[in-house]
């Protein structure tokens, strides 16, 4: 990853972050995500900061990203967007931080790997935190028609 042209910023407690979760990992009929979707990778739990992303923009970016180990684009219609309040997340025992960690691949970015100024990371999640993140996550409705139109135009 190249050096991002953006300053790293402190995320205020009043902010929200968005987490995209595959629809098949949301319990049918309940619209509640599985705790397993809050397992972090080596860099933490990836989220998008609402200062630089709307739910629609997060989904559009997903639609412009290749699936793992593939040249196929992800289908944004197969994701749901959940909102987490940063102040609430920071109060959870075990959470180390919610940090701004923008992703920059170049200008223009390579196909399938879009830049993401809103990218942020929640670090320090264990079973207690995952359980509580699941209960704190609130589904956000996105205009999926607009998302699909924009993805189609940008691919």
């Amino acid at each position: 990853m190249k050096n991002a042209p953006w300053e790293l910023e402190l995320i205020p407690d009043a902010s929200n972050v968005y987490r995209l979760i595959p629809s098949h990992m949301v319990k049918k009929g309940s619209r509640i995500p599985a705790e397993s979707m809050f397992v972090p990778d080596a860099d933490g739990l990836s989220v998008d900061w609402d200062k630089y992303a709307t739910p629609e923009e997060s989904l559009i970016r997903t639609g412009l990203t290749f699936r793992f180990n593939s040249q196929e684009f992800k289908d944004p219609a197969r994701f749901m967007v959940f909102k987490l309040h940063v102040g609430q997340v920071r109060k959870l025992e075990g959470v180390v931080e919610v940090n701004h960690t923008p992703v920059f691949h170049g200008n223009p970015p390579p196909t399938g790997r879009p830049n993401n100024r809103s990218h942020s990371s929640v670090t320090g999640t264990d079973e207690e935190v995952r359980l509580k993140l699941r209960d704190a996550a609130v589904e956000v409705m996105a205009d999926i028609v607009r998302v699909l139109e924009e993805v189609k135009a940008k691919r």
Partner: protein
Amino acid sequence: MSGVNVAAGKNRGWRGQQRVKFFARMEKEKQLSLLKIEAMLSSSGTIQMQLEGQSFSLPKELSAIVQEIENSKTILSFEAGWDAENALPVDKEIWLQASGFLLRYALRVFNLFSLALDAPDINPCPNGSIDLSWRTKSARMLVNIRKENSEMLAFFYGDLYGNKMPIKGTVPAGTVEDHLACWMKNLV
């Protein structure tokens, strides 16, 4: 995923990737077909369950848990990248441990208190581990079964909502600890 290297498709073309995916799928289907789970209701009203060498004799009150375990078998067909990111497939050994853990604790709670645990959600995690997740009227709990340093462990957290009476820790996945079983009576 013996004999199949999914990561090997990374530097191949589209056809190469499809070929790797095809063989990974075949391998998974083979694993599933070899998986022996047998549950039947005996004349005495108990459920006899065989889980690859492990035998369980369960009261019929635990039939919802047996059903949830049966349903969760589909987890084993998930291929690498099932979350559209870089999720690992769930190994059969982890699934068997998670199922055995659930049955042993459900049985212990039933034997101690004559209470039938609610069936949890059984979910795969991107790191190849398995979550057992409960939300009941009075309590919530998350148990994660995973292998660490070649030992199969259960990491857990539970409370009565609002951080009341929390329980948190780690136990070997293959044993039953009474302090945990006692707390789990809240999951009914």
